């Protein structure tokens, strides 16, 4: 590839990123303003730059606990979902079994229902098993939509790997466990990276179930933020600061999986 053609193409992602960054810039902008200034008029840069919003967040336990709580159950859920989804996806990809196609589709159906109506039944269910207001509750509850997603994505990537790879490994004498971890998983690294990121992301932003299943101990950051929105009108500056901070953990996750997502499936020697 010569350099000329590469430069032309890059205008597309460049423009897209500019488009994405505009509102984010706006969000950051608001986070350094007071609510009064935000509502007062349009300024590209805070006329009265203030760190008050961020200070409020870092000093108020409710706020930073909110972040910690969210991080806890989201991480737990991501790891659980991906680990459980890997063998299942392998099964769907490599084997036929009784009810497989229906089972797969049933998994997808769990993402189809509007969450609003499940709030009350979930509350009843998790209270009944004594898990109300725990991180585990939310981590488990989010399995409802994250596991199907992880299975779905992983299966898609696994099916792109020719079964000849499995067979060649068996012929070369690899035990299944070694084959799976040393050969198979690296070839679907892109799928794992993407599945992990999406599980993290969907769990991180899920508001309704997280709010319903928690009250104090495990209150997630998203719930804390809605509190600002309703109690004293809109504390916009604070909300903006909180919103800006929520991007950071996800950015770290994507940073760690970026190599997986961009990793090519180099047809290596088996």
């Amino acid at each position, binding site marked *: 590839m010569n350099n000329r053609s590469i430069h032309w193409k890059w205008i*597309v*992602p460049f423009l897209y990123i500019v488009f994405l960054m505009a509102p984010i810039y706006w969000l950051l902008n608001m986070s350094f303003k007071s609510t009064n200034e935000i509502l007062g008029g349009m300024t590209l840069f805070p006329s009265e730059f203030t760190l008050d919003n961020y200070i409020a967040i870092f000093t108020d336990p409710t706020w930073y606990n909110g972040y910690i709580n969210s991080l806890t159950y989201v991480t737990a859920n991501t790891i659980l979902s991906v680990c459980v989804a890997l063998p299942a996806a392998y099964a769907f990809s490599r084997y036929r079994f009784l009810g497989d196609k229906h089972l797969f589709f049933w998994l997808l159906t769990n*993402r189809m229902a509007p969450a609003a109506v499940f709030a009350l039944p979930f509350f009843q269910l998790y209270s009944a098993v004594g898990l109300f207001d725990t991180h585990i509750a939310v981590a488990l509850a989010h399995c409802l939509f994250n596991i199907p997603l992880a299975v779905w994505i992983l299966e898609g*990537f696994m099916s792109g790997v020719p079964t000849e790879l499995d067979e060649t490994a068996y012929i070369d004498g690899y035990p299944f466990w070694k084959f799976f971890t040393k050969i198979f998983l690296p070839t679907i690294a892109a799928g794992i990276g993407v599945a992990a990121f999406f599980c993290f992301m969907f769990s991180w932003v899920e508001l309704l179930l997280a709010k319903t299943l928690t009250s104090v101990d495990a209150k997630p*950051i998203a719930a804390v933020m809605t509190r600002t929105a309703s109690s004293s009108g809109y504390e916009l500056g604070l909300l903006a600061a909180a919103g800006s901070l929520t991007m950071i953990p996800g950015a770290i996750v994507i940073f760690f999986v970026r190599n997986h997502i961009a*990793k090519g499936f180099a047809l290596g020697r088996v």
Partner: protein
Amino acid sequence: MSAKKLNNKAWWLVAPVVLLVAFNAVIPLMTVVNYSVQETFGDNLFFFEGMKWFEEVLSSERFHDSLIRQLKFTFIILLIQVPLGVAIALTMPRKGFWASVCLILMAMPLLIPWNVVGAMWNIFALPDIGLLGYTLNAMGFDYNFTRQPVAAWATLITMDVWHWTSLVVLLSYAGLSAIPDAYYQAARIDGANAFKVFRYIQLPKLKRVLTIAILLRFMDSFNIYTEPFVLTGGGPGNTTTLLSLDLVKIALGQFDLGPAAAMSLIYFLIILLFSWVFYTAMTRGEDK
């Protein structure tokens, strides 16, 4: 690809998934079905009403209106987000420092809690205090999304495109990464140009990933609630009242669990039907 092996022991691999998901799905679903066929006069008194709610919902004009608005919305955003997402994934750098930068920046909109997304776009688009609203009006457009249905729709759609296109991008990008180099090398040797490479190698290999992206976006856009609620509240009037918004209005506003539950189920069945048709169509050609 050689045929899959028949092996019912594979159920052991799938069991943990089934258990975890079923635990969360079956019991609550039963509860919802329960509500949908009962009527309450408060105080936890329920009366079995059979299909009454379903009939009422299905025949209501309000429901028809919301449904049509919803279908329009979903159709438009799919039409924009899927090609756009794929195009961006194709043009992004494949490796190196800039690839990481792109991935991280593109992931940002996905990570913001949905109520914040709605709130920030709300301010962003306000004519007098928001960057977008201010700029548009300064350029001569008469733009006020709180009062003009067209502006409200445009803002809603732009917000959704801003928020979710990256999902399509990330999936497509990962899908493209998974294409072995040998295919591109063979295409070079065969003398194929960029368009042919896209049509005969990239697009077919992206089929699975695109199915996931399209279905995901379809489902999620059909269920969308928080962002439009915070952005427009369903207005002006009810011009942007999508299905979910209507549902919550009915359930909360009128305390009618029955119709709400019935509506949710109908709604769920619509998505189920569309998804099933689409899914079957896309996977029809697969070896089984």
